[in-house]
């Protein structure tokens, strides 16, 4: 639901799981965000979405570059995109590490709509991009 000329905040989803890539952007759009999905970290980095993304929903375990790898890469590139990790591995030891490295949140799949919305909201609140406004 795009609203007039106001540019919607772009939430990018990077996950190797196809069902996530199918379902999550649809839900995000229902929430009123713009959403794009990428099947790998490399694909995301190669896209023009890097500069426009206000919030990154990032899978941890992926073939090739993993979620944390991408996080590091973005830091290296000084791309301050708030990151919400999503993972199917319910590993409680990983979460604090990722938060310590600057992640907004780490959601274990399956997660509720409320948890998702709250995490994305937090991320967008942090995002300093002038063009990004949460609805």
């Amino acid at each position, binding site marked *: 639901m795009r609203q007039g000329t106001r540019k919607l905040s772009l939430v990018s989803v990077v996950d*190797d*799981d196809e*069902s*996530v890539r*199918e*379902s*999550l952007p*649809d*839900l995000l759009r*229902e929430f009123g965000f713009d959403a794009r999905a990428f099947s790998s970290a490399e694909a995301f980095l190669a896209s023009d979405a890097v500069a426009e993304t206000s919030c990154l929903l990032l899978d941890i*375990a*992926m*073939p*090739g570059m*993993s979620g944390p790898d991408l996080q590091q890469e973005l830091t290296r590139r000084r791309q301050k995109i708030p990151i919400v990790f*999503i993972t*199917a*591995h*319910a*590993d409680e030891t990983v979460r604090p590490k990722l938060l310590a490295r600057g992640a907004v949140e780490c959601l*274990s*799949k*399956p*997660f*509720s*709509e409320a948890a998702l919305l709250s995490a994305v909201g937090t991320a967008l609140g942090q995002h300093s991009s002038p063009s990004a406004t949460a609805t």
Partner: protein
Amino acid sequence: MTVQPLWLDGGWASFRALNGNYASGTAATTDLISILDTVEVPIVVLEADATIAGFNKAAADVIGMTRSDIGQASRGVAALAAMPRLDRQCREVLEGGVESRVDLRDGDRWFVVRISPYRTSDGHATGTVLTFTNVTAFRASLDQAVYERECTKAILNTVSEPLVVLSADLRIQSGNRAFYALFEVSRDETQGAPLHELGDGAFALEPFRAQLRRMIAGNDEFQPVEVDHVSTSEGQRTLLLDARPLSFPGHAERRILVTFQDITAHKQAQAAKDLRSEEELRRSEAFLAEGQRLSLTGSFSWKVATDEITWSEQLYRIYEFDSGAPVTLEMIRTRVHPDDDTLLERMIEQARDGMSDFEWQYRLVMPDRSIKYLHSVAHATKDQDGHLEYIAAVQDVTARRTSEEALAKARSELAQVARATSLGVLTASIAHEVNQPLSGIITNAGTCLRMLDADPPNLEGARETARRTIRDGNRASDVIARLRALFSKDELTLEALDLNEVSREVIALSESDLQRNQVTLRSEFAKDLPILTGDRIQLQQVILNLVRNASDAMANVHDRQRLVLIRTARDGADQVRVSVRDAGVGVDPENVGKLLDAFYTTKTDGMGIGLSVSRTIVERHHGRLWAEQNDGPGATFLFSIPIKPEGIPERVPR
């Protein structure tokens, strides 16, 4: 020398008258002279004054009388010179009318010379007749006899063993020097004394005397008798008495030679030896008893015919019966475990049937209800009477059995832990597999609701998300089904399997794990793979394990692709093979064998159980698991199992 026949005229006077002229005479005279000349015994006739009156032919031949001797005094005759007292003896004979004898030695020869009065027909002794009987041979044998006797005496006296000759009434006839010395008596005081009076009556033993009496009666056998004898000089001695009969030709009466052998020293040595061997026996018995105690091994003998059973001390301890109590089969039956009753009876039956060694294991139930495991080995033999006897060893193997069971339990627990460990990883991977579709379901369902709630409702979008929800739900359900199949299976549950399909399932399960480790998995499945019979879940565990190992082996590989290649192939006519090849650190050829052992691991965080369990599973399928070093980097683990399930222990699934 010309021998002249002696001529006699029937009267002494005429003899003299005719002296020197004996060539003529009457026919009767001539006959008599002929007869005298045939007599081998020399005969010389002397006149009363001891001059030679005449002699026969033998006198000339044997003692060398000559014709010129006639009329000579006997003293001057060479042949008679050796009898210096002849004149006087002849005179005595003439005076007394009684003949006398003289021994005459002539060189080597001996003669007995009989001097008889020569009587005329009217009874007057007018001269003497000397007859020379040659006794040389007799004298020689007499000498020999004396010599032999002396020799025998010397020998007997030299012999240190006391000897005595007893007469038929068991009186001492004579003994040797050793005999008299032994009893400290003299020949004179014992001569004729009864043997049993010797040595304070030590020889009065009736069995000994009875034997001697039987020997006198003609029995030649004698059983040597031991007699204790106290000697004042030597103290207590043990004598062994032996006897043998002495029979002399021409003597109806038997005598007995009794020998006294001093066996004191021998007895003492024997006693010492007995003592020593008794000591040794006691010691070896002690060793045996101690050995039995330490090794918990008892022994028994069983005389089958009489059911006479002898137990060692240790066996009493094992059965917990009072030591020394008489053992019966009934007693043994009271201890044997009810489940082993039949076994025991069969063993007894078999044992009675004949000579064969046997070995069996059985259990005892002790009064406190505890169980003992016994291992028995019996050896069939014949006793002294030729009857069947078993000699057996019985070992209490309870401790061993218990520890074996404990070990088996520990092993199975360890295997459980190993399985749980690999399942832990597996579970995480499965959780991932489940969480992905769950996540999709929730997201899609949420989206769907929102689309329906919109005004106007986005029905097309809602349908799409609902379809995705169903798809993801099915996906999750599949994962759960696989997960359930992987849990809690111990025995083989046999079913017909397509190894390609089995492998595919494993790949599906481990895919995310492999992705996370940046491992690329490739598969090459044989198209003509035969269906085999096996346990799906367990074989999947093996493959999963090999894949995980392959993945782990490449954890530190950064300079090449982390590639795992799973291949299936026929292996010969009746086997199927699965190989998992990695490009990791590879295996040291030396470690290939050890790799398959429990606890051996090249990984720092592994328990090393996985391969061991895998091997057990493969071997349960009568197959083989092994590893090979690749030509390039890494190793290949392979297993090969037969298509036919023969001999595989099957459990019907519950």
